[in-house]
């Protein structure tokens, strides 16, 4: 499922959530829900960034160094 959501979409969602929370009109339950959802988006984004960074690092190593590129099995 997560595969289908792009980083940009998740970031956008997170941004919306932060904005909504900062608008300050939420009741506690909604705030908690928004917060949870926001944290979820953020973690998702961070995961993607981590993955991306590892990939880049592999690509870069492969190019400059000696390590051969290994196909990313999850893609």
């Amino acid at each position, binding site marked *: 499922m997560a595969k289908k959501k792009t980083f940009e979409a998740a970031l956008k969602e997170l941004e919306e959530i932060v904005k909504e*929370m*900062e608008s300050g009109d939420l009741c506690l339950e909604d705030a908690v829900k928004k917060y949870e959802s926001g944290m979820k988006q953020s973690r998702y984004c961070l995961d993607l960034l981590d993955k991306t960074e590892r990939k880049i690092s592999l690509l870069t190593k492969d190019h400059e160094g000696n390590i051969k590129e290994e196909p990313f099995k999850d893609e």
Partner: protein
Amino acid sequence: MMITKKNTGHIYTVSKLTREIKSLLEDTYPFVWVTGEISNFAVPASGHSYFTLKDHQAVISGVMFKNQKQRLKFRPENGMKIVGLARLSLYEPRGAYQLIFEHLEPEGTGSIQVAFEQLKKSLSAKGLFDDKHKKSIPFLSSGISVITSGTGAALRDIINVSRRRFSNCCLEIIPVKVQGKESENEICNAIFLANQLKSTDLIILARGGGSLEDLAAFNSEALAYAIFDSHIPVITGVGHETDYTIADFVADLRAPTPSAAAELAFPDKKNLMQRIFKLQENLNSALKNEIASLHKTVLSLNSRLKSPETIVYDFRFRLEDYESRLNNMMKHYIQYNKEKFNWLLQALQSGKPDKKILSNRQHIVSLLNLLTYNFQKRLQVIKTNHLELETKLKELNPEAVLKRGYSISRFVSNKKVVFDSNDVKLKDQIEVVLSKGQLITRVEKING
């Protein structure tokens, strides 16, 4: 034909450029026939002759080494018009080029027989000398038929030159008489034979120097036609004479001597190989240059291909910011609601009904006290009322009369008080009630 322009941006050194010009000149003009007027003729101690050759438009330096000069039949001098066979050579240290002459002959001089002139004129008129009939000399011939005397110096010269210039040459020698009666026929037959065998692609017709009489065969009409009819191109190299023979005019190429003919027939193998190697080298360096330049292009593009790592860092910062904002907002929400809640809780606590309980308790106790007090008061009144009545009653007690001395008489029988003496009969028993005690009496007398 050589490469003269390089748009690869390559910069020559003087030596390199000069070397290239030298090979260009020397390769292009291994031998040339040139005509002009001699000037500045000088012979220094070395014995070589130095001069300039000029016409009305240009001058060119020339030299003739001592050895070649010895073979000349005349003495060159200033103002003399000459025709010569020369190599073009460039002297690198001075960057100057000059003609190195193998042979010189005065132009337009000499005693020419009328017959020779007539034949020449007639053959020329028939077109035998025309350039359009001249066959091209193969650049690299596969085999050469040498038609000359089997024993003469000419053959040795040709063989020597061929060995020097092209070591693995193929020569097919057709020995002929080159003077005398039979010579004309033999030479013609030799040409026919070569054309018949077709095992070669070039004919050298050579003879050492000699008098006009000696060269009769070479000035014959028959040989002229034999040469003209030959399918194989013919180079002539006849004698050291300044004069041309008829054969020279008809030949596809004329050399002044047999060795010169050999030089014209055989390309310099070493030179050719160097030329090819040079081309190979150019080919290599051109491709290497291209590869190097492409390599550079790829590397430069590569260095511009920025890893998206910085984008990742930017996003990380953004995410951190969002998260801290989320956390702050959430804390704020909780704090806000807590405060609101605490405030309400306090309000609720301050409305705790225990004060009400206390006041109610006090109220009830005071009511209770009042009740008790009023009740006691009321009881007291009732008691007082009762006591008053009882006192009054006690004061009205009929027995009080008796204390003053009165007494009450009652019939014993019916306890009736005796009011009237008439009611009494004698002997009736009467009870007399006194203040203290009672008396039982009997009626003795009645007074009525």
